[in-house]
């Protein structure tokens, strides 16, 4: 049935195009890009793909978790989609180890030269690319409402000491120092930036990748917890459990001075007619940390056997890595392209900072996609428990180290 559809699709695609396509097939793609900006970005990819003579069979599922569950169920049932949106790193490797992914080296020969090493390494299984990366989203961004900063008379802080020191001045003018949505996935961005602040990139690696017991009980960790405890006073009483977009509204409307959030927040600025880098200042935080924590969406290629589907996969991988597609896609999505050689003009000031950081090898893949899910999960649980309690830094540190140790 599926084979027949594939053949039919390729015949139809062939009939509809005037140019002679190199490949012709139908790719069924599961993804979770359903909101406005995401859909606009995806359209770039779909249009470019259909220009190659192939057909894109759209299968959107709202919500990343739900989409991944649908894809997993389809794979388990022996009826995988041709391709699906998937994060590089551990999630991709888990599928590859089960033998559920196809290598795409036929079209990926020069990708090692085009992609940052960390993305290349995490999109490959046993030396072969199994997924095509399409965007980079940075997480540890500090955003500052420029009008508020000007009113208070301060510049963007370079590190946590400066940020905390400026809090009193901000409060004196009647603003909230830090807009924070008190949900663990938002709070972890704050915590990670503190880890970089106290011990640099190496310390972040030891704590969040290795979940090293010695690092979790080190003096640096205690210092991180002391700083993190001060975050409790930087936020407003409405912070716990607040959604990120409502929290973003506090920054945009000038109720709060700072916010730490991934660069998808830029979509909210644009919707409110604010220019990132001008009305809303941005900075990879802490400034001297040389670390941009990031996540990358990619399209994983499932282990289909049918030659027509296989051709469709290769064509898709080629389209995704096309420099024009990469550029146009990220311009609409608010991300930056994984390809390092893409023309920077047209990107906003913050995206240009991120592209510079990517070129200088400052990318740091989000721990969720590297570390053991249960162990990093225990760390996140204790991080958020600490923030919403009156535990001392010493208690918080011990509780976190113990909880992580119990998962081994």
């Amino acid at each position: 049935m599926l084979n027949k559809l594939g053949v039919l699709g390729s015949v139809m695609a062939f009939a509809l195009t005037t140019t002679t396509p190199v490949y012709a097939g139908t790719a069924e793609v599961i993804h979770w890009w359903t909101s406005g900006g995401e859909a606009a970005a995806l359209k770039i990819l779909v249009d470019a793909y259909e220009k190659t003579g192939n057909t894109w069979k759209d299968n959107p599922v709202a919500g990343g978790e739900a989409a991944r569950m649908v894809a997993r169920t389809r794979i388990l049932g022996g009826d995988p989609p041709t391709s699906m949106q998937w994060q590089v790193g551990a999630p991709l490797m888990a599928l590859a180890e089960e033998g559920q992914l196809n290598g795409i080296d036929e079209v990926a020969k020069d990708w090692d030269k085009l992609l940052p090493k960390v993305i290349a390494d995490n999109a490959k299984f046993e030396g072969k690319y199994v997924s095509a990366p399409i965007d980079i989203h940075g997480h540890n961004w500090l955003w500052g409402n420029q009008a508020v900063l000007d009113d208070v008379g301060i510049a963007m802080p370079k590190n946590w000491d400066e940020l905390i020191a400026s809090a009193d001045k901000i409060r004196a003018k009647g603003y909230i120092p830090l807009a924070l949505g008190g949900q663990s996935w938002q709070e972890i961005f704050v915590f990670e930036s503190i880890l970089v602040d106290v011990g640099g990139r190496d310390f972040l690696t030891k704590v969040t990748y290795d979940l090293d017991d010695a690092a979790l009980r080190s003096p640096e960790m205690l210092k991180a917890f002391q700083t993190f405890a001060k975050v409790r006073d930087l936020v407003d009483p409405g912070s716990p459990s607040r959604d990120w977009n409502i929290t973003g509204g506090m920054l945009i409307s000038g109720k709060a001075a700072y916010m730490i959030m991934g660069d998808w927040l830029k979509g909210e600025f644009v919707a409110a007619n604010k220019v990132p880098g001008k009305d809303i200042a941005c900075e990879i935080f802490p400034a001297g940390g040389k670390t941009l924590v990031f996540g990358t969406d990619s399209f994983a290629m499932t282990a289909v056997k049918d030659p027509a589907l296989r051709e469709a996969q290769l064509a898709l991988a080629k389209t995704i890595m096309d420099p024009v597609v990469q550029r146009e896609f990220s311009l609409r999505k608010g991300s930056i392209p994984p390809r390092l050689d893409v023309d920077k003009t047209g990107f906003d000031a913050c995206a240009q900072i991120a592209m510079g950081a990517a070129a200088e090898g400052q990318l740091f893949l989000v721990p969720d996609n590297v570390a053991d899910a249960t162990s990093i999960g225990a760390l996140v649980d204790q991080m958020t428990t600490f923030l919403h309690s009156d535990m001392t830094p010493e208690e918080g540190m011990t509780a976190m180290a113990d909880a992580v140790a119990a998962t081994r």
Partner: protein
Amino acid sequence: MTCRRRLAAGTLPIREAKAPIKRRFLQRHVSQVALSPSLALIAIFLYGFIAYTAAVSTTNSKAFPRFDTFVGLEQYWRLFHTPRWHVAFTNMFLFGGLFLLVTISLGLLIAILIDQRIRAESFFRSIVMYPMAMSFVVTGIIWQWLLNPTLGIEVMMHQLGFESFRLDWLTNPDTVIWALVVAAFWQGCGLVMALFLAGLRGIDEDIWKAAAVDGIPAWRVYVFIVIPMLAPVFLTVVVLLSLSIVRAFDLVVALTNGGPGVSSDLPSVFMFDMAFRRTNLGLSAASAVVMLGTVLAILIPYLYVETRERA
């Protein structure tokens, strides 16, 4: 059933004897035959999967169930060394106890008030019953907005001039469980009220007349006569509410998403998180088995007492 069989044996012995054996079998076992498809389904999809879950809980399964990774009871050891599980497990009893207490006492009180032959009774009954038509997700979101200290009731009271008014249940880890109780009560009260009201309407009018003749005050009639007579209704209510306590998931997800921190986590939320966000099926299955064990520990003594009383 027995009555009909006696009738057949007594009045129509000849026809009974002539009926084909097959048909007699069907006649005798009609209830078993009718039940067997659903019994088979229950055996597979309920007990079968309970056994399957128990089996998964002894493995180190991550994203997919894998039985080649047997680890014995290690997942249980892990579970009981997970601080978040302790929070979730304690919360189930805390939330459950408070929810039962508040919903039963206030539900009964409202039922008694409505039972006073008041005017526009159906209007009041509808008001109390309406929240039941809401799903828990909607309930959760409504109360999230109402209880949010920066846009809900607290702000309204401040605008009305009560500057010192504070309502931070939702953002305080020590009181967040009350926010869950309030929202769950708001949603579940209607059903409880309706059950009690039906029970009250079933009480014989003569009891009230006799009490009036003896000059007993109404509250004493309620406390010593009517409420004890409602014992079967209480049982129904407790069973229904207990089920919703163990199942409670959507309410937490919509109202607090387990926060602040993990302070309003419930075992069902923990289980879902471990299975689908943390891709740790083994640990998730272990928590499911412990949940089942807890329910059985409460249910078995209750069933024992029940069946003995009936016999």
